[in-house]
């Protein structure tokens, strides 16, 4: 029952992606929408940029989040205060995060613009590199806390005895991390990585707010194009073809990561 409810909307998307849709009628067109999407250079470039963005965001957020989780105090008021603070960005709607960072980097009046000016640099969102830096910074601000919480939950699941055993063996800090903490953290971190990959890969609202996908197309990603094709021209099939592709990519990523994690745990 649950499976049916779950699969039905997804099946609809797949259905759209192989049909030409005119209101109530639809004609089967096979892979036409897919080839149209795959051969458009817009889509190809967006796809590359999405991959780039996801990889950059993940390489910053995962180690940072892990590192902070390892350094968090174990208990007490301080911990609660820190957790409240870390949850706040997670409770901020994406669109607000986008506008907040746009406000931070407004020419002349943004805090970030001013701060960078101290170092003699000019933050100009018309510069693709600057635009990317702001968007990456935004994502790190918004989502690193999620990685921290996941990693922290994984750490808390390690029984105290493990650490005692390790200290009896006079294990070094690195050895404790490698053989006591890492095996437990692996799964939590990969779940966090999958969630973050999905979100960063399908990001669109924030860059849209900060840069409108520009300068030119420097910060438009897969989902931004997809959003436009859904809202403006309403080419259902085209949008659906992109959706199915993106979903497939995310699933493959998740699958590979899970395989890596579980195989490793069998060998070690």
């Amino acid at each position: 029952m649950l499976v049916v409810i779950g699969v039905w909307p997804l099946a609809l998307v797949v259905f759209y992606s192989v049909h030409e849709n005119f209101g109530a009628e639809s004609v089967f067109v096979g892979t036409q929408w897919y080839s149209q999407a795959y051969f458009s250079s817009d889509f190809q470039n967006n796809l590359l940029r999405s991959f780039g963005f996801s990889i950059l965001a993940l390489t910053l957020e995962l180690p940072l989040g892990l590192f902070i989780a390892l350094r968090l105090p174990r208990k007490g008021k301080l911990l609660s205060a820190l957790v409240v603070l870390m949850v706040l960005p997670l409770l901020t709607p994406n669109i607000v995060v986008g506008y907040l960072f746009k406000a931070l980097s407004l020419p002349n009046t943004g805090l970030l613009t001013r701060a960078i000016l101290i170092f003699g640099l000019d933050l100009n969102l018309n510069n693709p590199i600057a635009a990317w830096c702001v968007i990456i910074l935004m994502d790190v601000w918004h989502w690193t806390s999620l990685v921290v919480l996941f990693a922290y939950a994984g750490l808390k699941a390690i029984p105290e005895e493990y650490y005692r055993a390790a200290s009896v063996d006079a294990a070094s800090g690195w050895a404790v991390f490698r053989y006591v903490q890492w095996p437990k953290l692996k799964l939590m971190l990969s779940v966090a990585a999958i969630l973050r990959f999905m979100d960063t890969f399908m990001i669109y609202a924030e860059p849209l707010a900060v840069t409108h996908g520009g300068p030119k197309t420097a910060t438009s990603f897969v989902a931004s194009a997809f959003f436009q094709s859904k809202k403006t021209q309403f080419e259902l099939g085209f949008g659906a073809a992109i959706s199915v592709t993106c979903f497939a990519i995310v699933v493959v990523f998740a699958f590979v990561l899970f395989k890596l994690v579980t195989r490793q745990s069998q060998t070690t």
Partner: protein
Amino acid sequence: MKAQPWPVVVSLYVVFLLIPLFWLITLSFKTEVEITQHFTIWPHDPTLDNFLLIFTVSSWWMGYVHAGIYVVMNVLISLTVALPAAYAFSRSKFRMKKPLFISLLFFRLLAPIIMVVPFTEIFYDIGLFDTHIAVALAHCYFNVPIAIWILEGAISAIPPEMDQSAAVDGHSLLSFLCRVLVPTIAPTIAVAAFFCFMFSWVEYVLSGALTAVNAKPISGIMMRVASVSEGDYGVLAAVSLVGFVPGIVFFLLVRRHLLQGFAIGRV
């Protein structure tokens, strides 16, 4: 684990988290002119207009009410569906159990934007378009799998002997679930509720698309304002600050449970 020294990196991270939040707060007290034309750290000419606007124009504050209604609905539905499901996943053995359990996660991997069109169509067809329950159900699509994952971890941590002794005490399955299991895993339920809440409260693509007038939530209104007027920064900042309040209240209510729930293992 030995106590970690209160280190530099965490402090730096805290500062990094605080700066944009600080800016968000100051923005909400600034006038639009001040935001776009003068650089001031503290509001030069503090104004409450942004907040007044939210609380006097009914479409704005009703937005919070609408969002509140479907978020509560969603949390309740998600938990009532997920709890028996998680119990089944944890206790009974059936074919395809493991692949089914893992494939649950894939639902969470669907970006809401992918599902906008099919959901709009389905809810339109069954006449639920522009109702709270439509948004709540749409969000369940993403929240139920996560809730099952979270709860399953906690239920599996309970020895099956507890089920048996409850059965000996004359509990039916239903009364066991309500009277024994729920109190035992209350911390984890709080964690699951919090995750559902978090997703539902900030999600805006589906909630915007599935509503028109009667149930337009605050995030949908924000989207509209943001796309019509090129950045009403002050108002948007004020709206999101007010939007923090339920989140923080909810968090403080379940805080102790939340930290305990984390301790149990699976988030």
